[in-house]
């Protein structure tokens, strides 16, 4: 148990550096842009619009208010995609820092996820409001589960980003391979279709992809406005914790030699 908590202690000790990195990431991203945060919204909204047109008018996904379905999952997918991608270059980008200062290098990954999380918080806040007003015409009780979903999402994505970052230090191939993997994952995750459309026989296999479970939870809570099944919620929480611990353990095992390699 203490071994599992140690990482939290390390992060706590370096919280000011973490804070500085998050602030820096956001400042650097937005300070010289007139529209600033609008761009962060435009990109996914544009994709949502295209998906919305294609999958409600060309290939028809039989869901009422399909746009609401897309909104309830797409930003989660976008957060996952961007955070995992960051893992492939974060150490190359900070090689000077890694070589010349002793600090727990996972802070870099946490910092990248942290600044993305702040953007995501704004995005999901807007989505919540839009769905409550135009889709549910009320604030559904299911919104109360959101903190749990957020915890699952963070543990899961950071738990996957850490081994990706580790591998990227040793093999530049990851940088090229990950986009392919993520494109595949986009089709194998319920981003533009509901998981219920997957044939029942294949669903066990389908849900081996943890992102599929995560998105299904968001669909339940945001689109359907219903409490997710306790099974799925508990299972995903457990899976997220395990993936995080495994990813972190792998990272720690190799992190000591990063300064010699990057």
């Amino acid at each position, binding site marked *: 148990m203490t071994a599992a908590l140690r990482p939290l202690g390390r992060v706590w000790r370096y919280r*000011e*550096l973490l*804070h*500085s*990195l998050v602030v*820096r990431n956001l*400042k*650097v991203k937005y*300070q*010289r842009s007139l529209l600033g945060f609008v761009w962060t919204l435009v990109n996914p909204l544009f994709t949502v619009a295209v998906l919305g047109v294609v999958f409600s008018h060309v290939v028809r996904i039989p869901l009422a208010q399909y746009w609401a379905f897309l909104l309830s999952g797409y930003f989660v997918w976008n957060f996952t995609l961007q955070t995992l991608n960051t893992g492939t270059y974060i150490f190359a980008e*900070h090689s*000077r*820092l890694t*070589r*010349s*200062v*002793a*600090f727990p290098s996972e802070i870099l990954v946490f910092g990248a996820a942290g600044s993305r999380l702040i953007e995501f918080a704004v995005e999901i806040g807007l989505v919540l409001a839009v769905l409550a007003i135009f889709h549910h015409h009320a604030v559904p009780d299911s919104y109360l589960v959101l903190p749990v979903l957020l915890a699952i999402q963070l543990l899961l994505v950071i738990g996957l980003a850490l081994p990706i970052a580790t591998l990227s230090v*040793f*093999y*530049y*191939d990851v940088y090229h391979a990950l986009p392919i993997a993520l494109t595949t994952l986009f089709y194998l995750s319920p981003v533009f279709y509901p998981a219920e459309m997957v044939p029942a026989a294949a669903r066990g296999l389908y849900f081996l992809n943890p992102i599929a479970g995560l998105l299904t939870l968001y669909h339940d809570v945001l689109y359907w406005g219903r409490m997710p099944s306790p099974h799925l919620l508990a299972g995903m929480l457990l899976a997220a914790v395990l993936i995080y611990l495994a990813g972190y353990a792998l990272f720690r095992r190799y992190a*000591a030699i990063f*300064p*010699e*390699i990057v």
Partner: protein
Amino acid sequence: MPAVELRGVSKRFYFYEHRTSSLREWFIRRVLRRPIHVRRAAFTLHDVDLTVGRGDAVALLGRNGSGKSTVLRLIAGIYHPSSGTVRTEGRITAVIELGAGFHPELTGAENIALYAAVLGLRRKELAERYDDIVEFAAIPDLPDTPLKYYSSGMEARLAFSVAVCLQPDILLLDEVLAVGDQAFRERCLERLRQYHARGGTLILVSHELEQLRELCTRGVWLDQGRVVMDGPIDAVLERYRA
């Protein structure tokens, strides 16, 4: 307990091809079992013993590649020894690369905050020292100008100002004293002398031997990863120059 104690420290680096290379080679090696290269071990340090007492000022001398920076990185905890032990007592600030962590798009003030956080300074401590740092750097319009508009000399000055204003227990400097103009360098030396006079432990790597003589009382000469001489700075410099 001395400030720094290295006992029988060796550092070995492996040059694996696959560390910088590709999965294709991994496949060739592991799956086809065809060796395409040999794992090469290179010693940077061999059985180094070094004890630095509290308040000492030590100069590390030696040619390029003799292992000076590796010693500093081991003391700072950036590298871990392949064998032997490294023990330190007190807060360490290591300036191995000046301004690592600086971001060109951020202003001087923002970079000071970031660099200070990187070097382990708390925000409260920074607030106490901020004016001192800005004054020491003496760069006009420093706080509000993005770093990318600085000259390289000014950038180095800013980094150095943060480093010397930190007041750690142990300060490690790796060839960073050659920054700025003559006047700024004089002030840096003066600041380091004050730091040492107040009881700070100083370990310096430099090729500017006169500077080392001025600042340090003891010299440690490294050659090919071994300590070849350790003694009073004048005696070591004399042998080193010969």
